[in-house]
């Protein structure tokens, strides 16, 4: 395939796409109104292109992407479910999209009410008491949560320094803990891929501010001893944080608030069907038990009768974690989703996600190692370790899947599984799609036996062949 031009290479002097409103006031010359030393003398080298050039360029780029509307995107831990189109339409309603964030509260009642009601809905879904809708993504929720943990302990005059994190956790967990000024202490998963309550005891002390669990965990397994774990941590004076990225498995089935969780973040861009946007925006609301309410970031949305308002007079708050109120446009889509699902639809989503994952697991069990076998929840993790003897790595399997038209699963995560393939089909995939995917993996398995070189050279049919990522890190070229 010929290399694609960058938009800068397409630039031709004198072309333009913009039209701007006419100047209906006297022209102000920058030199007349600004000190000369503050004025830009050379125009920034932005491309000079026409609107048709732009349309062609970006449409031709777009078709190089794999995406959910095209085919299965079983990226474990990311819940790449279908994004209802109506969500896009309602988020574009001008009564939302054209609201300035600093308008008087009386003029933004609709936005406040939506934020409030979605928050209450998330509390009901999770069994928690209170919520902040501000965090812009899961990791932002984690950081906010850790700041709440700190504020909670400091308010009680206690200086704890450590947060316990299972070794199967997502990388954002320890990174968030660190920014909040805590030391991340890794705890080992047991042979069942879970936290062992008895061995947890040895880690508990007056230094432990919290434990950060993920439930279901990143192996797609429910933490069976979660109540006991929470009890032990609470007895030691610590708090229990839950990374709720995997909440898609629990909707209407089990609630964090009922199994001892004090704080949890949700990923609206996973569980609540809002699109991932090629990497964002997401939204990571944080739900808490009432003991944590005083520390929530400002502003919290409150309600008095039929009036909604921002509440700032919370003296123990951790402060502000986003310039405004988070990714409001994402909240609109999530709100629309829960309105259309209702209680029944949410439960059905979780059930179907679990059925799809177990169905696919049962079809793949024969061809792949399953390091932690049993029923899974919304996702499961295979290991490609046994393929190494043929010289084939998990990365090769992932690349070969592209030739069959699929996006690969998450690979090499969680870290505790060698050559991991983490597969999350989601509930919006049909049985035929799952069958096709299982069949593709079966064929790749046969290829590994018969012709491993073929697998190692994959992909062949993608817009570009295998990408040299090592070279990108060696010869850094990040801007033109």
């Amino acid at each position, binding site marked *: 395939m010929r290399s694609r031009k960058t*938009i800068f290479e397409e630039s031709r002097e004198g072309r333009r796409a*913009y039209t*701007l*409103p006419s100047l209906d006031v006297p*022209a*102000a010359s920058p030199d007349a109104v*600004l*000190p000369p030393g503050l004025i*830009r003398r050379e125009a*920034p080298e*932005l491309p000079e292109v026409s609107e048709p050039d732009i*349309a062609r*360029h970006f449409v031709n*780029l777009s078709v190089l992407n*794999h*995406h959910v509307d095209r085919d299965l995107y079983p990226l474990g831990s990311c819940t790449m479910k279908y994004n209802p189109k109506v969500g896009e339409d*309602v*988020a574009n309603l001008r009564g939302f*999209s054209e609201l*300035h964030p*600093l*308008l008087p509260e009386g*003029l933004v009642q*609709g936005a406040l009410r939506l934020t409030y009601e979605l928050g209450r809905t998330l509390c009901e*879904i999770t069994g928690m008491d209170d919520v902040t809708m501000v965090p812009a*993504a*899961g*990791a932002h929720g*984690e950081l906010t949560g850790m*700041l709440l943990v700190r504020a909670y302990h400091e308010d009680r005059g206690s200086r704890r320094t450590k947060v316990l994190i299972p070794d199967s956790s997502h990388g*954002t967990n*320890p990174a968030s803990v660190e920014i909040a000024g805590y030391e991340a202490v890794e705890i080992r998963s047991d042979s069942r891929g879970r936290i062992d309550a008895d061995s947890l005891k040895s880690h508990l002390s007056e230094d432990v501010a919290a434990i950060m669990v993920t439930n279901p965990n990143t192996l797609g397994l429910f933490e*069976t001893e979660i109540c006991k774990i929470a009890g032990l941590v609470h007895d030691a004076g610590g708090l229990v944080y839950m990374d709720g990225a995997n909440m898609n498995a629990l909707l209407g089935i*089990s609630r964090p608030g009922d199994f001892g969780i004090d704080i949890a973040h949700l990923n609206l861009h996973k569980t609540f069907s809002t699109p*991932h*946007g090629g*990497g*964002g925006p997401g939204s990571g609301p944080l739900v808490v038990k009432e003991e944590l309410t005083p520390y929530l970031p400002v502003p919290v949305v409150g309600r008095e009768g039929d009036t909604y308002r921002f509440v700032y007079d919370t003296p123990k708050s951790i402060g502000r*974690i986003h310039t*405004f109120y988070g990714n409001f*446009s994402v909240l609109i889509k999530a709100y629309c989703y829960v*309105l259309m*699902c*209702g209680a*029944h639809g949410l439960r059905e*989503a979780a059930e*179907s996600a*679990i*059925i799809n994952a*177990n*169905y696919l697991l049962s079809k793949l069990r024969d061809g792949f190692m399953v390091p932690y076998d049993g029923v899974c929840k919304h996702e499961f993790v295979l290991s490609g370790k046994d393929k190494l003897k043929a010289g084939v790595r998990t990365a090769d399997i992932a690349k070969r899947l592209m030739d069959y038209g699929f996006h690969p699963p998450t690979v090499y995560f969680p870290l505790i599984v060698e050559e991991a393939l983490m597969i999350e089909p989601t*509930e*919006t995939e049909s049985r035929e799609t799952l069958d096709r995917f299982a069949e593709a993996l079966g064929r790749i398995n046969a290829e590994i036996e018969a012709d491993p070189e073929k697998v190692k050279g994959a992909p062949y049919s993608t817009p*570009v*062949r295998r*990408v*040299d*990522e090592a070279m990108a890190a060696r*010869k850094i070229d990040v801007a*033109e």
Partner: protein
Amino acid sequence: MVYIPRTEQEKTEMLRVIGVKTFDDLLADVPEDLRLERELDLPPPLSEFEAKTALRNLASMSLDPDEWTCFLGGGAYDHYIPSIVDHISSRSEFYTAYTPYQPEVSQGTLQSIFEFQSLITRLTGMDISNASLYDGGTAIAEAVLMANAVNGRKHVIVSGCINPLRLAVLEAYLGSSGFKISVTGREGGATDPEEVRSLAGEDTCCVVLENPNFFGVVENGKPIGDIAQTSGALFIVSVDPISLGLLKPPSEYGADVVVGEGQSLGNSLSFGGACLGFIATRSQHIRRLPGRIVGRTVDADGNRCFCLTLQTREQHIRRERATSNICTNQALLALRATVYLCWLGKHGIAEVANLCLSKTVYAHRQLLDAGFSPRFTGPFFKEFTIKMPVDAATVVERLAGQRIAPGIPLGRFYENETETLLIAFTEKRTKAEIDELVLALKNAAGKGRGGS
């Protein structure tokens, strides 16, 4: 549920293939006492039509954008968004994909991020940029954490003229990690280099300036950058990207890190989110940069292509030693900014900046002619402060009847600024709207003097 392509019969068959009798068998690992025995207490499900109606009703509970004229800025701006931006960003190839972990099937996203990074470096004059951060406030916080990673110091000097909301974000981010934050005064409406000099020392990690600052004043960055450099601190400048069509890029007055809010680049106001944080810096700091970075490389056939690079900085590899915890960022907004900046091009960015300047200068003159006085006197770009003879929040209320949102009353941020109104003008504001604003303010202020 309509988004689930599965019939009851298929469910039964799938359960059979799995080897269980009922769905509940798949919950074997969920202790029975933790299973919710009732339905969630939520309103009954709505059809798409009903849901749309419900959301339309909510949208109509706020002001009607067709009827109101809005002069609010303060970090979020009502610039024109060309149609092409919505059309490109609403392609499901872009918006239903995720982080481009697998470059062979993500070249569309990767190349557009590479172009975004390039555009940001060209605007700011810096060498490198990342793929985006959450917003302009967290971008400042990330820049400070980055500066600390570079020089290990913990004293942060922040201009008191930066957006107070962003300052609050910075304080929340740094609050727990032993940083000392010194905020300079804001009395003159611009940052006093002498005050920065008196605070700066060998322990200074960085100096944070915003330009134009929160009051709309264009700061003279050079002397402040020089002070930062002398004390070995990093100079962080937060910018309004539109202003760079007209104002000197921070690279020319000593910036080490340039951050900002990219909402104004083709992204809707949306009640303050989703926003678009960006961060750009010098090449030597690339390993300290937070978040995703896209690099150019080749594929197995030697063809030029793109991939995420230097991922060893990031949380999924480096975990607690990562440069940041960010994972999901604001990619779709970065795409929109990319399309928008291509649409404007080299000349359009200058033209839009000049339009803003002309409208703002005109409005300023009209207000002064009408008897108002400026709160601060420094040079301005698209926003300025005016002193009202009465409480500015009252003025805002009085103008509601005329469907004018005249600006941001600064009393909500500073106790001694209750009479100050911050007013912004984009290229969308017409002369007629500005004249109407001036007249309305005059009337509202006049009422105040009359003792209402």
